[in-house]
């Protein structure tokens, strides 16, 4: 017969718990102090090992104690033979396992485990891999464990295929797992390397895997087409199942690729009047490191390269002034070569008699300039991808990931042809994801600028006009090195950024009806003559300071700016910008 039941009151329970805690704390503090004093005395004995073990099993995040423990273990290693050391380290591993149960995300425990595994005379990597499997099946986003796994895989040369199958399993059980997708993206290129160029046709019997070994330089992260198609299918399953899951979309972006532009000098420009050379690179570089060599008519020149604006240590555009008088005679013809020694590349440029300026650039890159976001070689693949994502968009017209991917695919396929659709999709994106509307505006600006550059290239003119396009930002200004007239009117620009100084040939700027309040980038533009800034937000004279660095500025339109209300604005401006003859306020 059971007794009648009474239950302890909450107060009783609390009291008991409090006492328990106090007791625990006392023991803990005593052990900690003992450890510290032992370490101070340089004692590396078994007792210290015991004490630290007690403390660490209660609190595995005590880094100092792990350090002490490592000191003890390294000491023991010197006095014991290999078998004993093996035993000690194995005991350490099982102790660590118990620590990981207390806190599976403890930095200290995982780091120590890595340290022990590396020192173990006869490591059992298979067991370590199983441990990782186990931990990751319990929490597939434990990045400590992912790191440890990568170490184990590296140390024990686990076949890439096996690891890929592991990601298959994890993704199968839960595909909202960016860690697995990412791991996949590092494994696939190793297992199925893509060919850098279309495989050359061979007369002899092709080996079954015609994927040639990866070229280590640029294409090492690409995957062969056959595998890519399988991956597209996998990832499509994921984003059709849950289009709001971003990990699948990110992986998809990776699959679609990102071309790396060849590192080269994309343009060399020389101006007779300024006796100046400007060089544009395919990516930002630091030319001050002495890797740039200028040869004029066969003579290396000692010049000082500088970026277009003091803000930039790295810049895609660099300029230098030639020694006075070297090219100023219009009757002379000059041959100029810029060597980029670091990359073993160069660009020639001839300045003919009677010409005041000259440039040399690669026209072949024009088309490819902005398709770099997605670099799948075959448009047929992109075409069919666009089709399936469009299919998803029909089902999920308001899904932002889907819309964004469509935009990217369209850009990769035909940026000008899809311009209208792209703009419409951007509009929807801003509405459905209003939190990121500024991001979409900037991205859209970027694409509009790219399209305008393409159109300009086709027209072979030096006028860049992009008015009334809702631009919020300026980019790709390095591509506008040769532009003489720029029209940015009726957009939503707030500044002419330092990059604007790359427009070294600029003569006329029209930027009316924006919200410009900062002119930082109108800086040392040697040919700039006219600036129209009607209806902007320039409010102080200091904001106009950069203009003072442009020697040829003679016309400035500031109508509709707050600055015009400043007292003595006319006289102040006359002092600040003496070259301006035509000032409209």
């Amino acid at each position, binding site marked *: 017969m059971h*007794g009648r039941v009474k239950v302890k009151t909450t107060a009783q329970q609390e009291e008991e718990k409090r006492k328990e805690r106090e007791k625990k704390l006392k023991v803990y503090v005593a052990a900690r102090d003992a450890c510290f004093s032992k370490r101070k005395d340089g004692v590396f004995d078994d007792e210290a090992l015991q004490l630290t073990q007690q403390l660490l099993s209660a609190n595995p995040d005590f880094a100092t104690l792990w350090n002490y423990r490592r000191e003890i273990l390294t000491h023991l290693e010197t006095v014991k033979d290999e078998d004993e050391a093996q035993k000690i380290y194995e005991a350490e591993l099982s102790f660590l396992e118990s620590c990981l149960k207390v806190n599976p995300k403890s930095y200290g425990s995982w780091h120590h485990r890595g340290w022990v595994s590396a020192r173990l005379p006869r490591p059992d990597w298979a067991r370590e891999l199983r441990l990782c499997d186990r931990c990751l099946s319990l929490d597939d986003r434990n990045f400590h464990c992912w790191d440890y796994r990568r170490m184990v895989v590296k140390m024990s040369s686990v076949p890439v295929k096996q690891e890929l199958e592991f990601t298959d399993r994890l993704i199968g059980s839960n595909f909202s797992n960016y860690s697995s997708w990412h791991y996949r993206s590092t494994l696939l290129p190793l297992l199925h390397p893509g060919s850098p160029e279309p495989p050359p046709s061979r007369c002899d019997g092709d080996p079954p895997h015609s994927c040639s070994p990866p070229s280590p330089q640029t294409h090492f992260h690409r995957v062969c087409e056959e595998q890519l198609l399988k991956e597209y299918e996998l990832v499509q399953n994921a984003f059709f199942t849950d289009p709001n899951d971003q990990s699948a979309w990110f992986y998809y972006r990776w699959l679609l690729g990102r071309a790396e532009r060849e590192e080269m000098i994309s343009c060399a420009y020389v101006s007779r009047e300024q006796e100046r050379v400007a060089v544009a690179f395919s990516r930002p570089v630091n030319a001050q490191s002495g890797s740039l060599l200028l040869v004029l008519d066969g003579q290396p020149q000692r010049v000082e390269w500088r970026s277009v604006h003091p803000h930039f240590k790295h810049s895609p555009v660099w300029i230098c002034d030639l020694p006075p008088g070297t090219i100023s005679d219009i009757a002379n013809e000059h041959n100029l070569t810029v060597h980029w020694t670091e990359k073993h590349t160069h660009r020639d440029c001839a300045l003919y008699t009677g010409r005041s300026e000259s440039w040399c650039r690669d026209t072949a890159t024009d088309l490819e300039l902005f398709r770099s976001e997605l670099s799948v070689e075959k448009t047929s693949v992109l075409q069919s991808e666009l089709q399936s994502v469009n299919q998803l968009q029909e089902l999920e017209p308001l899904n932002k990931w889907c819309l964004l991917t469509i935009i990217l695919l369209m850009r990769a396929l035909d940026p000008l042809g899809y311009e209208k659709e792209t703009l419409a999709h951007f509009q929807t994106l801003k509405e459905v994801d209003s939190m990121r509307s500024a991001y979409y505006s900037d991205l859209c600006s970027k694409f509009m600028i790219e399209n305008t550059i393409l159109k300009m290239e086709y027209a072979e003119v030096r006028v860049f006009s992009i008015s009334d396009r809702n631009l919020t930002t300026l980019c790709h200004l390095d591509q506008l090195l040769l532009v003489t007239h720029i029209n940015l009117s009726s957009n939503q620009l707030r500044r002419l950024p330092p990059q604007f100084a790359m427009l070294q040939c600029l003569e006329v700027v029209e930027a009316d009806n924006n919200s410009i309040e900062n002119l930082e980038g109108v800086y040392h533009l040697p040919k700039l003559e006219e600036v129209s800034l009607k209806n902007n937000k320039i409010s102080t004279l200091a904001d106009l300071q950069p203009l003072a660095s442009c020697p040829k500025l003679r016309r400035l339109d500031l109508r509709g700016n707050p600055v015009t209300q400043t007292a003595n604005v006319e006289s102040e401006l006359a002092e600040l910008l003496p070259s301006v003859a035509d000032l409209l306020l």
Partner: protein
Amino acid sequence: MATEDLPSDFDIVILGTGLTESVVAAACSRVGQRVLHLDRRSYYAGNWASFTFNGLLTWIQEQNEEPKPEEVRDWSGLTEEGEELIHLSQADSASITNLQVFSYVSEEEEEEEAANTTEEEKAADEEAVKESSETESADSKEDDEEEEGAGEEEEQVRKSQRINQAEGEEPEVDQPRPSPSSQSEPSRKKISYAQLVKEGRRYNIDLVSKLLFSRGSLVDLLIKSNVSRYAEFKNVTRILTYRHGNIEQVPCSRADVFASRQLSVVEKRKLMRFLTSCVEETEEQTAYHGRPYLEFLQDQQLGDNLQHFLLHSIAMAAEDTPTEEGLASTRHFLRSLGRYGNTPFLFPVYGLGEIPQCFCRMSAVFGGIYCLRHSVHCLIVDRDANRCKAVIDSRGQRISCSHIVMETSYLDRSKVATPSRFLSRAVLITDSSVLPSESDQQISMVTVPPEGGSPAVKMVELSPSSMTCIPGTYLVHLTCRSVGSAHQDLSPLVTRMFRTTESQEEDRRPSVLWSLYFNMADGTASQVEGQPLPSNVHICHGPDSALGHEDAVQQAASIFQSILPEEEFCPPAPNPEDIVYDGDNTSTGTRGTRSCRALDLKNVQLEPEQNQNQGNPE
């Protein structure tokens, strides 16, 4: 307890240990009521019970016994002035009918495993000879049972076997014969009848086949009351459906949909979108109220595949089920999804019979008194108040009480209407899974849609990991609403899905080793007739036909409410260490409880906050 007299005063006397009665017992004891819980049977859980193989054989015999004539004794010596007696039934009512047993395994003693082909062929030939002689095989079956079954009545064995043998349309023996084509593949391990009997203790065969919805009322109750500490659960690992003669996996979770090879990406999206959208009530849905769910599904442009999955496997509805009901069951399914695993269902390790026992244990911890093989002869009713004052138990003791809770079968037959609805049940022991996979730990729920007049069948296939059958075998439960007898309703499906005859051609279907068919009254169809019972007599009906346990829990809650309207229903039980016993200040505490804290990650332990993402490396 057997010899001493029971206390003569209780608050509540409960007859029958089925799920509803056991929950009421636990709930009442928990709030301090003195509970006497009796069952006239020798086992717990009544029609909710799980049996070992041998136990089931005994149960089969009992069902075939002629009910003994009710002994009428004169209890007037125990009654007082103004009291009147209501006699109770001393035997089970006709809740189980149409019992039929078929055995397809070798009746011989275990053969040598290493027997070579010729020997096996010879054995098979002998088998074929034996086949013709039914009596012989029946006899050997009896022999086995006589060896094993202690205390069984031989007469009954013989009788039940006769009844079974009378059903002659099915072949009795299925001995896989080694054929040239099958020699290369690993031959299935043969299980003999003797082995089934010998290892019979490792079977836990449920009489009712149900599952727990992960967010159903039973799981909530188990968690809330802390009764969950007495049980462990397995996830049902997959939902299957039988369609066009094939078994297909039903993609119901996000991971399933992602991995499914049957669905196109567009179907995947449509399915996922439907599943997410139907969680909340929309105007569009309300517009379909009263119209069939199927119509609603069709108008969602889901396609045949998805309609099938949604209607039959997820909503488990019929074609004419109204939309609001279909949506409600779809939501119930979806709410339960992902709480403990990739399907919405849990199954208790060691069988469903564990659950009522867990509640009984809880009742016992809080002072409930338990007697099996002990019943009540009659109720003593105060004529004026029309309330039951006391009972007279099967030993003739008068026990006073203020409430009586009893299962329908305790009522005298004259007081219960013949059940209007029955369930058809089949229990199969098979040799392999209906859909073999990499893992042999699968617990599968299979939905079979209605076809050509035959009702929709719910099938649960249990693997040995559920601790309900021995390795190398599977336990398959089939349930449907009765149209005819269980055998008529279910055997056509069984012969389509399983191998019951010996066939020469390649046949990958699982073989049935042993099967049992019976009908069980649908509890929700039972009705009390005649004179109304005293108001403090509460009747629990038996298991219903639904897959979940909502009916039993709801019934128990409402009975508890009417007995103790002021009290909370199953408040959390304190930890054993916090229980103080009178005159026992050392608080050892765990008396009467069984601690099941063994950390086996494969088993699900129901805890109030189950956080799947909290990694706990082992």
